[in-house]
């Protein structure tokens, strides 16, 4: 080992400024990472951590400031130049070409061998397989990326960086899409890489993980670096306070009193629903479930196990191939989106900016989107302009949406504000049932708490909520009943107070099932 004290920092950033138009994304940020440590960068959405990461690996160029790698001042013009300085990046939305195999993705952009015939390929596959084993990263080298789980894709991404001789690996929100088991595996891998001398920087907002897996923690807030300390000198509560700048919004969960009897009638009932996925595959397989008024039912599962189809069938975006839907005691034969809205089913779709709202329209138009026909908002097809503006402004106020004005395109708002706006629209219609698909995906701690409070409010008003989410912490926190979906079937049902993360994780990955289901038997 060399003398630790004289070693330059692996990464040293001084006074970096980067602006996007009028928005200052990072303001005089300084940041140091020691060689061979796991360094966590914490921050709310929009705090500027992604921008900082993008500057580190050469995607964005800073307006001013100095960047040093291993003590040497550098200025990257492209990710390629950063890669030459041995910086590898693992993005939150993986930068893999989904139609190609892991093999092709790993070798993409590398200069070696212009001819890539069978012999060369065979040799390379062997080489990659043994190297991956050495690093403890398991993935199918010749499998197409679109067939992989999130965890496997991530391992390919990490391997891709390692294969490019990266000594510094940057991971952006690495655990946001992983199951609990996959997250544990990831941190085990990262520790192993650290032992081989790699430097690891990761961003996250899951405080629990940071405390037990990282050596050093830096915190950004509103474009500035506000704190940096070894993880041994802090705790979760302290981190949350520094992250928010104040005490975080507490989620007001009120436990249901044991005496309150379940309502006799259920609100929504699905009976043996089957449905096809995007490519004609069987996405839902005899799925049955019900939701009572005044409860939040959490549906946990790894992405791509039929959650999207489940939400779409309940909200009328897709019709089941067989099975029945009962709402408020009435059978629904041919559902349509309009029909489902009219009987009181609201939907917060997974992709808020594509299915949920029209990005280039402003808050007023987006809020009006489901209600524009009502007499309150229009008369004989003519919009009541100033009245609608006042109405939208009051909603923006009530739901605490931060936007420069009610006429600002929603595409430019932060994810949290977009989501609040979308929830506001859905809740304002006072639906009997709300289907929320990944409602807090990509949101920061503060916005997540606000969303949770809105859902809990619905529950206390005796409305039903079906919460579909990959975030197990969220489901455990606010649901009254937990269902696990795996390959289009409900494989387990839990009381949140009696279930553990590990137990549910086993059901999510199909290792266990409570019910004897035909396809699994």
């Amino acid at each position, binding site marked *: 080992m060399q003398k630790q004290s004289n070693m330059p920092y692996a990464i040293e950033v001084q006074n970096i400024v980067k602006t*996007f138009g009028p928005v200052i994304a990072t303001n005089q940020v300084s940041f140091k990472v020691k060689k061979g440590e796991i360094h966590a960068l914490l921050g709310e959405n929009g705090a500027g951590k992604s921008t900082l990461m993008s500057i580190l690996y050469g*995607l*964005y160029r800073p307006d001013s400031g100095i960047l040093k790698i291993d003590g040497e001042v550098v200025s990257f013009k*492209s*990710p*390629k130049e950063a*890669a030459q300085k041995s910086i590898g*990046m693992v*993005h939150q939305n*993986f*930068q*893999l*070409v*989904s*139609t*190609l195999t892991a093999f*092709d*993705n790993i*070798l*993409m*952009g*590398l*200069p*070696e*061998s*212009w*001819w*890539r*015939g069978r012999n060369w390929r065979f040799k390379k596959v062997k080489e990659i397989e043994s190297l991956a084993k050495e690093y403890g990263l398991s993935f199918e080298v010749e499998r197409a990326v679109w067939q992989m789980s999130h965890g496997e894709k991530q391992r390919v991404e990490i391997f*891709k960086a390692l294969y490019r001789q990266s000594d510094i690996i940057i991971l952006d929100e690495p655990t946001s899409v992983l199951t609990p088991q996959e997250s544990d595996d990831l941190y085990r891998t990262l520790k192993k890489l650290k032992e081989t001398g790699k430097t690891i920087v990761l961003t996250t907002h899951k405080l629990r993980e940071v405390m037990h897996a990282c050596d050093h923690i830096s915190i950004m807030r509103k474009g500035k670096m506000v704190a940096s300390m070894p993880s041994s000198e802090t705790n979760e509560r302290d981190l949350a306070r520094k992250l928010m700048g104040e005490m975080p919004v507490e989620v007001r969960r009120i436990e249901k009193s044991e005496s309150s009897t379940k309502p006799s009638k259920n609100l929504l009932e699905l009976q043996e629903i089957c449905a*096809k996925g*995007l*490519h*004609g595959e069987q996405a839902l397989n005899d799925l049955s479930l019900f939701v009572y008024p005044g409860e939040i039912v959490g549906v946990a599962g790894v992405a791509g196990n039929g959650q999207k189809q489940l939400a779409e069938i309940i909200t009328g975006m897709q019709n089941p191939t067989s099975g029945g839907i009962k709402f408020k005691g009435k059978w629904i034969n041919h559902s349509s989106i309009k029909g489902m809205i009219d009987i009181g089913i609201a939907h917060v779709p997974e992709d808020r900016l594509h299915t949920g709202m029209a*990005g280039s329209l402003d808050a007023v138009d987006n809020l009006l989107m489901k209600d524009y026909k009502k007499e309150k908002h229009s008369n004989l097809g003519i919009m009541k302009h100033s009245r609608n503006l006042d109405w939208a402004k009051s909603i923006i106020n009530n739901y605490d949406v931060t936007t420069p004005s009610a006429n600002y395109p929603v*595409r*430019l708002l932060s994810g949290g504000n977009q989501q609040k706006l979308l929830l506001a629209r859905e809740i304002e219609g006072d639906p009997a049932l709300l289907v929320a698909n990944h409602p807090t995906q990509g949101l920061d701690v503060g916005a997540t708490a606000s969303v949770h409070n809105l859902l809990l409010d619905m529950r206390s008003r005796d409305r039903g909520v079906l919460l579909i989410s990959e975030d197990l912490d969220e489901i455990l926190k606010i649901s009254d009943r937990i269902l696990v979906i795996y390959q289009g079937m409900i494989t387990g049902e839990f009381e949140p107070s009696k279930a553990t993360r590990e137990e549910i994780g086993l059901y999510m990955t199909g290792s266990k099932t409570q019910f004897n289901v035909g396809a699994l038997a």
Partner: protein
Amino acid sequence: MEIFSMDIMQLLIIASISAATPLLLATLGGILSERAGIINLGIEGMMLIGAVCAYIVSIYTDSEWLAIIFSLLGGSALGALLAFLCITLRSNQIVAGLGITLFATGLSSYLGKSFGGSQPQTQIPNLDIPWLDNIPFFGEIFSHLNWMVWISFFIAIVLYVAIFKTRWGLHLRALGDGPAAADNAGVNVYRYQYLMTIIGAALCGLAGATLILVYTPSWNDGLTSGRGWIAVALVIFSRWHPINAIFCAILFGLFETLGFKVQLYYADIPPYFLKMMPYLTTIVVLMWVGWRNKNKPNGQPISLGKTYIREQRG
């Protein structure tokens, strides 16, 4: 002459292959640029410019090979224009392509007009392979095909190998399906897109040259008569695969040829109906392909038509 000893099937196949050659070249050109994510609706225009360049050069120089070189240059010039519009100026790819076709239609009429009626002074010769004559049926078909037929097959095979077996091809496939991922991996996205669009356009120009130097040896306005649009459909029909393109082009060549043949035997069918056949077939085939692949990924490059911008936010 042996030609009289051939039966009608063989003649039909030969005619189909000849008719397929310009279609194949144009389709290959379209595949190249679309694999790089750039929709090329300028194919018809590029063919026309290629044809008129070849026509004029052949009149001045009497050299069919010079004519071919100039058709390649003419096509690439339009390709460079399309690439500049779509990649650098980020304009809408559909509008840019249509604009190029409209512009090239006018320009080729204008350029060709002053030579009105004169025949190109050269023709591309056939490639005689005498020993093939000994093989019955297929040998006789392939023994006297035009040089351009062989060149187009050769290009298709070279492209297949290049796209699926080389580093270059991996980059091309990657940037059509995920330009951001390719960029992050160090592939120069814009350079590849420019290059592929220009090479693709050159092939379209060559397709035009084939029309005038092999197929219909006299200039008239709108010489391509919609073959460029058929090529646009063939790109989809072939699922962006050069080998598929060979068979698709021959199939459409057959429909075109059938039109002429049917006219010979059944004089009472209106000629306009027969001229309509290839285009009607295009529509029917597109409907059929769309229906059959309703629930499957169709092989279309994912980023097709969407200009990649690196620092885009929001």
